[in-house]
């Protein structure tokens, strides 16, 4: 139990979950006060998921990843568990809104976008480092939300975040991204930090 507590603290899990909850509350209040519809709009849902994923991105690295690696722990399993917990956490927060007057859903869309964006951010963390990992999902998702393309297969794949929940192309893309991110991050862990990003994030 002590190990878990130390792990969560070193990954700044309290701060990350706190920011995530705060972001969800703000987005919930924004929708609740600006619209009469109980179902939050697709853009709103996608952007909320993007922010929740960005908030949890900071837990993908500790203060000293090199030191962490020296611990005799089953890192791949631990990192995979970490990502799955993040998925459940974000999904659970969005599920809670289903009980309220501004519902962030539908569940299939939420699950698809959470999994895809978490995979994307985990893959970015493995390649360019945790400090910059949020940028790839942000840039891609803002573009997809602003200019969704539904006509061609390529368009549906490239703007998968903003497709309807029934879109198979989007679901396949999200699954691939999720698996890629899971594998890349679980196997290699976060990329080594640039000198400018040393010590605390």
């Amino acid at each position, binding site marked *: 139990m002590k190990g878990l507590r130390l792990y969560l603290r070193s990954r700044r899990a309290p*701060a990350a979950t706190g*920011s995530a909850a705060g*972001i969800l509350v703000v987005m919930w209040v924004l929708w609740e006060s600006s619209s009469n519809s109980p179902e939050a709009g697709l853009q709103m849902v996608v*952007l909320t998921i*993007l*922010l929740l994923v*960005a*908030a949890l*991105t*900071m837990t993908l690295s500790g203060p000293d990843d090199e030191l962490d690696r020296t611990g005799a722990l089953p890192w791949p399993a631990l990192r995979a568990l970490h990502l799955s917990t993040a998925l459940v956490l974000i999904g659970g927060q969005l599920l809670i809104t289903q009980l309220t007057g501004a519902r962030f859903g539908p569940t299939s869309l939420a699950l698809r976008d959470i999994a895809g964006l978490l995979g994307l951010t985990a893959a970015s963390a493995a390649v360019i480092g945790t*400090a*910059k990992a*949020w*940028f790839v999902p*942000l*840039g891609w998702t*803002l*573009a997809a*939300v*602003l*200019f969704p*393309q539904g006509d061609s297969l390529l*368009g549906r794949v*490239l703007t998968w975040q903003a497709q309807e929940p029934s879109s198979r192309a989007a679901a396949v893309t999200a699954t691939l991204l999720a698996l890629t991110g899971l594998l890349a991050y679980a196997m290699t862990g976060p990329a080594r930090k640039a000198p*400018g*990003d*040393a*010590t*605390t*994030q």
Partner: protein
Amino acid sequence: MSRVLRIELRRSAAIGAAASLAALGSLAMYFAEGISFSTGWIQLAMTQRWYLALLWPLMLAAGAWQARREHRSNVGELFATTPRPVSQRVAPTLGAMAIAAVAGYLLMGVAGAAWIFDTAGYLPAEVFVVTGVGALALVAAAWLGLAVGRLLPSPVTAPVLGVAGLGLLLMLPLATRPFGWLGLILSPAAEMNMPGDYATVPGEVSAAQSLWLAGLAVAAVLLLASDTWRNRSAAVLPAAVGVALAATVIPHENRLVTDAVDPVARELVCAEGEPQVCVSRAHQTLLPEVTGPAREALAVLQRMPGAPTRVHEDTFAYPDTYPEFRTDTVLLRVAAGRTGQLANKPNVLVDVVSGAFSSPPACQNPPASADQLAAAHWLMGTEPLAPDREPLGRPDPGYVVEDASVEAAEVWAHLRALPRDEAASRVGALREAAVNCLPAQGWLR
């Protein structure tokens, strides 16, 4: 100083930000909404401004991320003991981010220019002004991001700021509903989508936007360089002054950019030789393609008494700018296709001949388009066929060109059955009725 700036350019987020801006901006221009800048340079400059809706929030986020560097590397305490003013330390960062914003935006412009380089002719000065204001908007975004990132050094600041910036730009048109001009000042992307062929951005608009953006940039610098809360709250002042000055400069009307028409772009440019064929300056590179079939059509029309002797482009501009109507001139719609070539080339001949049976724009009952087509084909001696028409100009999926060819073929067959002189006099009467704005129904049937 320049050495520090060079190091800052290498070590900060500047290169990454510039590369992301250029890459995302170019992709958006080519794939997001279809290519709407094939007509020329001002359309390219305005399209670039439209995609600031995406790039402006991202630059905010990049600035906010850059501002957390001191926090990430745990040197805040060290710097606090250094007896140098903050302003001296932040200047190179401000410079590096500004250079990145301008470079990324210009690279995006170069990517767009590659598409129209050999097909665009008319280059008004507004192109540079519109591009400059766009670059200024990105500089202001980067600096504002730096300031906010320094005030709130959290890992989620940057992504939240990006999404908030996007939300702000999306909400502005709604939030400023009855005062569209206010939204136009505040948002660098407002009203810039789908620029028309004679589009322009009025000078007052660019001036007002520059004032606001400059105010915002100064406010961001103050916010970034000041250490006390009193100085920080004073940073509101330049932004407020910017908006106030902008509001005095801009005319208080709505749809200022959407309804603006560049009179120089509408002026006619004529081909060498006779008969006269002219297109607008904005379409001058299409003139060689228009001239041949247009002159051929004028030759066909000579079989009719009082036939028109000139072809001018129909320089109608939304909402109510019509070209002058003259009985000796046929007005032809000219539009550039996706690649900047003439979009309706196979139809120029038919369009000009049938255009001779058009009425002035204010007429209540002009000839039916089937009658115009039938008369034109009778003069040409060919059967009306369904037009092989590329959609004119810009991609517009819901738009279907009315096909009058089936009805026209019936009228044409009826005309052919008549004796030649009788048919000729009816066709002549149709033209007389059309150009003199008399009721034109029933002459051919």
